[in-house]
């Protein structure tokens, strides 16, 4: 379990310039096996929260506790936290360290000082899990952007984290590739009990997550199931977020007299099912 208790974080120099903190009085809890979508406008504090959870930056007020270990405790516990909280960034080119697929997957396990046979085992496992087997001997520079992002996820998962944070991993890859990546990650979360925190600004990606957290100006604005969050249309719009197109369509149909339709429709399949049930 990750606990974020009353966390306030400000980047250095921002106080003098009168800029509001990146995060202010944030409190939340992430349970094991939960899949969460964290959504917010640019500058809402999403990425800062991701870095706090992975102990890359430390809170100035409040605390972040990962499986009983405080991120600001220092020493060996910092590395234990970084091992159990895996972080995947937006641009794969910024996070891939080596230049071959196998070496990249092995980089994290090597840092953990694991014996060779175990590193080999994890590399083999990740090649299959993320469908990277055909590219095993390829140079990283020969991969497409989507393949690179899968490799970045494989490199992080090879460290066997309990929590996986994806910081806008779908921004730089085409729609269908992004969908496949998210589906793979959700499947892994289900099969292995890994908690997933997916940071995004695409509202249509929320539907398949257990929980949605909406951030605005460094604070948690809404927190609940996708359906319960999407009921707060006005608050979302004030935070610069529009409803997904399919939800908007459902609401327009309701406004035109189809009042038996549910208030919030998340997917096209939901809409089809709802329309069919009307007959």
């Amino acid at each position, binding site marked *: 379990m990750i606990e974020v208790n009353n966390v306030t974080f400000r980047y250095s120099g921002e106080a003098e310039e009168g800029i509001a903190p990146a995060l202010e009085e944030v409190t939340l809890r992430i349970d094991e096996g939960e899949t969460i979508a964290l959504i917010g406008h640019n500058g809402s504090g999403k990425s800062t929260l991701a*870095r706090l959870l*992975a102990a*890359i930056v430390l809170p100035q007020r409040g605390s972040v506790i990962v499986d009983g270990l405080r991120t600001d405790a220092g020493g060996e516990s910092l*590395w234990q936290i*970084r*091992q159990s909280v*895996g*972080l995947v*960034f937006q*641009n794969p*080119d*910024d*996070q891939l*360290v*080596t*230049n*071959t697929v*196998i*070496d990249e997957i*092995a*980089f*994290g*396990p*090597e*840092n*953990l*000082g*694991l*014996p*060779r046979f175990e*590193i*080999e085992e994890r*590399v083999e496992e990740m090649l299959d899990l993320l469908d990277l087997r055909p590219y095993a*001997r*390829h*140079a990283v*520079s020969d991969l497409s952007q989507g393949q690179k992002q899968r490799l970045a996820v494989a*490199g*992080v998962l090879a*460290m066997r984290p309990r929590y996986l944070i994806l910081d806008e991993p779908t921004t730089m890859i085409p729609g269908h590739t992004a969908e496949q990546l998210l589906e793979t990650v959700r499947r892994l979360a289900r099969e292995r009990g890994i908690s997933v925190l997916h940071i995004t600004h695409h509202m249509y990606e929320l539907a398949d997550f257990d929980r949605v957290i909406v951030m605005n100006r460094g604070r948690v604005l809404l927190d609940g199931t996708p359906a319960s969050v999407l009921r707060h249309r006005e608050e979302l719009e004030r935070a610069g977020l529009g409803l997904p197109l399919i939800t908007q369509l459902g609401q327009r149909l309701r406004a035109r007299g189809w009042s038996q339709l549910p208030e919030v429709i998340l997917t096209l399949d939901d809409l089809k099912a709802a329309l069919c049930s009307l007959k």
Partner: protein
Amino acid sequence: MIEISRHISFGQYVDNGSRLTRLDPRAKILCFALAVAAFTYISQFAALALCLFFCLFLQWLSRLPLRYVLQGMRMFISFLVILYAFQVLFYTSSTQATSVIWHWGVLTISWEGLMHSTQVDLRVIFLYYLTSLLMLTTSLVDLADGAEALLRPLRRLGLPVHELVMVFVIALKFVPLLITEVERLSIAQATRGVRFGRGNPWQRIRALSGIIVPLFMSGLQRVEMLSTAMEARCYRAGYRGWRRSKLHALQWAGADSLALACCLLLCGLLVALNFVSPF
């Protein structure tokens, strides 16, 4: 300017399972260092001809398409041709005993100038070829492991060998990335009407500043992101008591000893030939 990556293969790695690729990186680095020392020392055409044969032999061993390697050197050679012109035109002899072929103002083409510039530039081309080939046939991780193993004795003097090697390796990794970035920036500037390679020198420099300044900025941002990503994956440079394990064990085989012996023999031959040959 816009399609630079096609003309630079520096920093790329091709895993084609050739004999050169399979050699132990320590052997490759030692052979490379010996060859660089010998190539730098020689100054006679006969020795340069032997260098050419050696490079052709390496090319055959590497099983890389010659066209691919030459295409990768095209931009460098174009740059060298310009330098060559300057070297020839402004050559000043130390002996004053030059046979002038053409003279106009401060510009002179002399027989000595032509010979000397050709020798220097051929050496530079051979050295660039050796460096490219080392990187085309050795993955970054192998290169780092090999260099680290060879430099290990320096750790006793308190030098942070692992960290220094990692800095070097990451600098190499950034070469193709920065080339892609230059390409992207060139296209962005060209679409805004910036014309490279036109106008007087001042206008040309101004056009280039539109690439160089953002290139530096994005380079620094990438470095910061990469160091964050590495730390998030438990890379603990400079952390006391931290030991990385390795996926690949370095194994010195008979072929490595043979390669080193051949290289030593060649270097001896080159120096001897340079000494006895009149040209």
